[in-house]
């Protein structure tokens, strides 16, 4: 009996389910979702970090009138579009497990929401 070589790229059952459901690869969809999560996470991290460090907060004030919110939102937006572009390029022809991509997105979004929640980030303010 001839042994078949291992196929590292063989789809998992979940991936096969996705392939069956649609003719289009699900990679670009996973890229869009995860990029939104990354943008939210970066905003959350910058918000907490700025609260904890007065120097960092000042460094984010690219515009005097807007203050540190200008830097936080610019970098979060950059993170969203850059990660969307990079993930789209990497995943554009791949069928990925959308259940896994959803879990990753939810975790990233959850951390982003937590970091931007005022009672949470205020806990990091110096005494």
């Amino acid at each position, binding site marked *: 009996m001839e042994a078949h070589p291992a196929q590292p790229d063989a789809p998992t059952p979940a991936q096969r389910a*996705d392939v069956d*459901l*649609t*003719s*289009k690869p*699900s990679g*670009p*969809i996973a890229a*869009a*979702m995860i*990029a*939104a999560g990354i*943008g*939210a996470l970066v*905003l959350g991290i910058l*918000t907490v970090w700025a609260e904890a460090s007065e120097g960092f907060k000042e460094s984010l004030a690219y*515009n005097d*009138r*807007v*203050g540190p*919110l*200008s830097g*936080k*939102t610019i970098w*979060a*937006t950059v993170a*969203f579009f850059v990660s*969307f572009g990079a993930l789209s390029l990497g995943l554009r022809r791949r069928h990925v497990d*959308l259940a896994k991509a*959803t879990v990753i997105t939810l975790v990233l*979004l959850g951390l*982003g*929401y937590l970091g*931007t*929640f*005022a*009672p949470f980030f*205020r806990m990091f303010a110096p005494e």
Partner: protein
Amino acid sequence: MELTTREFWGLVHGLGLGGLFLVAFAGGLAGLYSLRPELVTEAGVAERMRRLVAGTTTMAAVAWATVITGTWVVYPWYREDEPNSPRSALLASEDTKDWHEFGMEWKEHIAWIAPMLATAVAVMVIYYRHDLIRNQTARRLVTGLFVAAFATAAIAGILGALITKKAPIT
């Protein structure tokens, strides 16, 4: 009866763009909900997809326009370092300071998550188009993100309306 420049931009940000966002969401959600094989004909799918693409793309564009005008046009007036700015007025009293420290500080950050989610939804709809009716997993994912984008914007919008009522930008 006239509006100051600040009041005008406050209206554009909150009522104009906010109202358009609500309309785009309602249309998009109705389209997504009814995008099921048992509910629409082939001809109906084509017509519905055009509306769905228009609705989700408009919602994403309006969400970006709302946060950009909010942060770069209206917010600087709110936080001016003057005794009669809304921020100063709210912080001047123990009874109202939470409107800034909880309400405004949460709103000004969380609002920026909405356009990212709305853009992801628009990309998903444009990418899948007619396949969304066959791929119910993707349709449910799109609907979930769509509702999350709206809920996020709603938190920011409601807080903004309440803060404006307490300390309007004039």
